[in-house]
Each structure stands twice: as C-alpha cells, then as structure tokens.
C-alpha cells in the first residue's frame, strides 16, 4: 500500500517544526547564547507563522527551475552581444555601483541570515532564516554572473569584491551591513528583514530593475524577475518577524521601536546613493527620487505604520526630515561624486540640457534655484580650464560614513553639522538621525573605519590620489574621471560606428 501523501500543512510540520527537539543535557541558554541579551522576550516560539510554509524539497525544485531559465537567458544575452543594446554607455555606471555596492551586501545577508538561523531558539525562524540565507547566496551569484558580461566590455567591474572593502563610498554600504551583522539576531532581522526589505526595498529594487528595463539592459531585468519571488517572501517574513515580537510581550515594543528608528535612518542614508542613480545616472529615467519617496515611503510606508499603530509602534523618528530632504537629496549626492570623481570607480558627468530641463520640471522648488547655477559653472569650467575636481578630502559622518554634504532640514544652503563628545574625543555627524545612533552605542561607532581618516593615518597605500587608487585596484584614467573623456565612451562610439568621435575623445583624454 502506498503511503498517503501529506498535505502542505502536515509536510511543513514534519519538515520544519518536527526536526527540532528539546535539549536534555545542555541548557537552552547555553545552546542559544544570543537569544536573550537584546531584551526581547519570547514566550512561545511556536506562535511564529511562516505564511509560505516552505519546505526544503519544494524550495530546491522551484529554485533550480528558476535558475536554469535565468542562466539560459544570460547565455543568450552574451551570444547576441546584447550589451550593445543599452540606451547609452553612461547607464553602465549604475551597474558598476550595483555590483560594487549591492552585490557584496547580498553575500553579507547570506552570512547574516545563516547566523540568525543559528541563534534563534525556535524552529520556525531557524528554517525561514536558512532559506533566506540560501536565497541571498543565490542572488549574489546570479548578480555576478549577470553582470560579468559587462566586465568584458567596460571598465570598473574588474575587482568589485576588493573595492567593497576599500573604496571610500563603498564603506557606506559595507558599514551598514557590518553594523547589522554585529548586532544580535533580533536586531539583525529588524534591520534587514523589516526596515530594509519591507519598508525600503522598493526604493532599492525598483530603481535598479525598472531602470534596467527602461534602459534596455535585459540581463539585469532577467535577474530582477528571477529574484522577485524571493524578495516578496523576504518582505512577508520581515513583517512577520515584527508582528511576532510585538505580539509576544509588550515590553518588546520600545526595543523594536528603537531599532525601527535606527534602521529606518541607516537605510534611508544608504539609499542616498540610489537617489542620485535615479535622477542622474539613468539615461532614460523611470521617475524622480522625490516621486519614488512619495509613493513608496510616504504613501505605502505611511499606511504600514498606521497598521502597526495598534501595537504601539509609530512612524520612525526623523521620517519628516527625509520628506524635507526629498527635493535636494539626489543633487547633493551627485555633487559629492562630481567633486570626487577622480577617486571613484564610476564615471561622472554633468546632466545635459534635456536632462537639466527634466530636473527643473521634477524639482521646481529647488533645481533652478540651488543646483543649476552650480552645474552651469562646472560646465563652463570644464570647457575653459578642464574638468573641475575637489582636491581636498571631505569630512565624513561617523555613523553613515557619507561625506557631510547634507544640508539643514530647514535650510538647503547650510551644511548640517552635529557632534558629540565621548571619552574626551569629538565625533561628527551629518544629521540628528546619525548622531542619535552613535549616542546610543558609542562603543560600537568609535571604531568606524572612516576612509578619509585611514588615508591620513597612512593605511591606504599612500597620501596621493594615484597611490590610493592603486590600493583600491583602480586604474587612473581608465576606471575613474569624467565620462565625456573616458575610454568607455570612446569604445561605445566606436562600436556604434562613430570612429572619428571616438578618436577625438581618446585624444582629449591623452592631452589632459
């Protein structure tokens, strides 16, 4: 007689919860040493619900199928030289930012969820964490494969893993994840699953994936579709984990609120890099950063927090500052990269007339008033004296590690300075949000590896830009500097049959 087939619920019970056991000769506290120190109180781990009831056999079957399709498409992309179909070679720089900034975070997430899976005492979250850990590893791998085709034709992709640990602006995403991973398991999942994947993920994924679609980058679009079903599972788990903690004990509420406040602000500052990508780096724009923030944070996020109000959770602290900043964020950040484009692994450029018109239309209150004059000046400088760069290193925020380019919430003409003193030393911040995070855990953030300070300490290959670039594994004149004079652009023109223009670009670059 054949065995009766189990239904989904039975199968989930057998293959997750039933695999756990009560320890008999070791105490639970010794086995799960990180379960209690964060202050979160859990009475009944079995109350954890996995809405997907995912089991390992189903996971394997489904993911294998998806990946077979993905790799077939990537193969076809390479065979057809589809990298030539993107709107413009400038677009490739957003992929460089993605590969050097985001892909290593997928790998870090793989490690982080492996750790939370190990440290949660309940079988439900152990299993969910493990699946997500495997997802993140797959995403890192598929991103690398997807983008590898571009590495054959464009500069700046060659040593992304090495760059992630060294390049000044990549310390922003790196330190974000290091902060989360060095926290306990509950803070980690609040940071990554809830604050980042649930509240803010649309603002990371949508711009890159829709940006890819708008700019005819079919390789990245294919990856995006492949990852989408995993992302929706991650989002659901992010909300689940929050509700679980809040429902288990009301003493958890202030702790969770503090983490939401912190990780909203950390995530928002990280997304500043995405804001400039949306407004400046996509040759065909999807929507402005301001529009995206209104739709995905103010509307969707607002509704979410209304829903969470019954648990005693309010909107994250300083959310109103993010709203005040929405019509200047991308312009301030692109200015950073234009200032220090000689030390970056991407090319930078000024928006052309059409793009400036788009920016004026999208940012009627700020663009013409504050930013257009700056761009006009830089353009004139480039034409008359060569490309302008800032030749002194910037002051960085101790918490988010971004150059202190952000302005006062109520004054777009004044840099926002905040500072704290701790054990006799001063620390500086770009915002009240970053200052509060430091003040809450100074022993953690006094250790921040700030790229500018590290250069001055002599830990980054030397004191000059070329020496530091060498230490970054960047080739001066090839991976950095202005797009207009770049090898990337010259190659692109050549591939498009514009040989004479290509020669002119190379000639100009050689003379500078």
């Amino acid at each position, binding site marked *: 007689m054949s065995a009766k087939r189990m239904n989904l619920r039975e199968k989930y019970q057998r293959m997750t919860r039933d695999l756990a056991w009560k320890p008999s000769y070791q105490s639970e506290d010794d086995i799960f*040493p*990180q379960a209690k*120190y*964060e202050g979160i109180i859990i009475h009944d781990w079995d109350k954890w619900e996995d809405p997907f009831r995912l089991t390992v056999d189903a996971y394997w079957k489904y993911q294998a199928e998806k990946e077979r399709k993905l790799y077939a498409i990537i193969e076809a992309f390479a065979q057809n030289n589809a990298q030539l179909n993107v709107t413009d070679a400038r677009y490739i720089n957003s992929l460089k930012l993605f590969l050097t900034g985001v892909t290593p975070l997928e790998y870090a997430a793989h490690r982080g969820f492996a750790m939370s899976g190990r440290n949660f005492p309940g079988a439900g979250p152990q299993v969910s964490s493990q699946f997500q850990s495997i997802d993140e590893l797959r995403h890192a791998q598929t991103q690398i494969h997807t983008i590898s085709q571009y590495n054959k034709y464009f500069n700046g992709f060659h040593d992304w893993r090495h760059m992630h640990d060294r390049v000044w602006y990549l310390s922003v995403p790196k330190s974000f994840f290091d902060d989360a991973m060095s*926290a*306990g398991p509950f*803070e980690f999942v609040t940071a990554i699953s809830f604050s980042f994947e649930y509240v803010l993920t649309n603002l990371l994924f949508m711009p890159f994936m829709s940006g890819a679609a708008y700019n005819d980058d079919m390789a990245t679009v294919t990856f995006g579709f492949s990852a989408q079903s995993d992302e929706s599972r991650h989002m659901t788990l992010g909300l689940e984990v929050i509700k679980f903690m809040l429902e288990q004990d009301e003493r958890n509420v202030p702790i969770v609120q503090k983490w939401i406040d912190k990780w909203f602000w950390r995530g928002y500052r990280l997304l500043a890099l995405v804001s400039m990508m949306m407004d400046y780096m996509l040759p065909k724009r999807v929507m402005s950063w301001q529009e995206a923030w209104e739709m995905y944070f103010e509307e969707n996020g607002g509704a979410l927090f209304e829903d969470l109000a019954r648990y005693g959770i309010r909107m994250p602290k300083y959310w109103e500052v993010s709203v005040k900043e929405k019509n200047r964020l991308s312009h*301030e950040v692109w*200015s*950073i990269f*234009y*200032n*220090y484009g000689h030390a970056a692994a991407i090319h930078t450029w000024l928006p052309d007339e059409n793009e400036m018109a788009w920016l004026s239309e999208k940012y009627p209150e700020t663009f013409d*008033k*504050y*930013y257009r*004059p*700056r761009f*006009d*000046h*830089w353009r004139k*400088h480039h034409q008359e004296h060569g490309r*302008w760069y*800032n*030749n*002194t*290193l*910037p*002051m*960085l925020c101790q918490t988010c590690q971004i*150059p*202190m*380019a952000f*302005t006062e919430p109520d004054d*777009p*003409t*004044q*840099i926002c*300075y905040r*500072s704290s003193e701790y*054990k006799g*030393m*001063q*620390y*500086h911040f770009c915002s009240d949000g970053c200052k509060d995070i430091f003040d809450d*855990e*100074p*022993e*953690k*953030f*006094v*250790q*921040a*590896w*700030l790229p*500018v*300070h590290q250069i*001055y*300490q*002599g830990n980054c290959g030397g004191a000059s830009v070329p020496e530091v670039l060498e230490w970054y594994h960047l080739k001066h004149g090839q991976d950095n500097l202005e797009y207009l004079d770049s090898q990337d652009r010259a190659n692109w023109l050549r591939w498009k049959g514009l040989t004479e223009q290509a020669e002119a670009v190379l000639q100009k670059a050689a003379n500078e």
Partner: protein
Amino acid sequence: MAVKATWDYRGEPKDTEDKFHGNQLVYVGWDQHLMFCAPHCVPLPPDMPFGALVKEVLPGMYDSHPDWSQIDWDRVEWLVDSKPFQPDMDKGLRDQGIGHKSVIRFRTPGLDGIAGAAS
C-alpha cells in the same frame, strides 16, 4: 551600557590623535559655498599658526572658486566647534583651542556663492 553586547564590551577608538604622525585632524567648511560638496578634512601640525592655515592651506582648498579672490579677510566671521571665534593669526591652532577633530567654519558676508545660490 554604551553598546548592546553579551559581555562588557569596549571599542577601541580608531582615530585617536596619536595615529596621525604628529598632526591633528582639523575640519574646514566655507559656509554657503556648496560647490565644495562637504567640509574638508586635513591633518595639520597643532602648532601651525592660524595665519599659516589661512595663507597656505585654505587657498589650496578654495582658490578655484570665483568668490575666493574677493574675500575681505577683515570681515570674515569664524566659528570653531560651533562657537563664534576671533582668531589670533600668530598663535598656534592648539594654543587657541583648536584641537584634534575641531571644526573651523567661516562665513564671508556678501559673498553667497555662484549666482548667489550658496554654491
């Protein structure tokens, strides 16, 4: 506890003054001139006279700005660590209270950046 940890954890500050080869870090910002996207960070000898900072360090940072040559230095307003400051041009930085990781800001009344737009 100044960090959430499973034991009495103490972090080691990465940027103490002894790590900068006899220099101290000083931050410098020119208000309302955001063409320079952020304030600057430079390592300087603690006994460098303030006048040397103005004459030898600041031009390298800022003389590419069209407002630079028009600055009337007698009218410049200084802030050190957020407090109004009257520099003594002959005295060293440390001797007038500018220490490791101090922030020096200056304002140039009447010069409000490119096109008066704080750039």
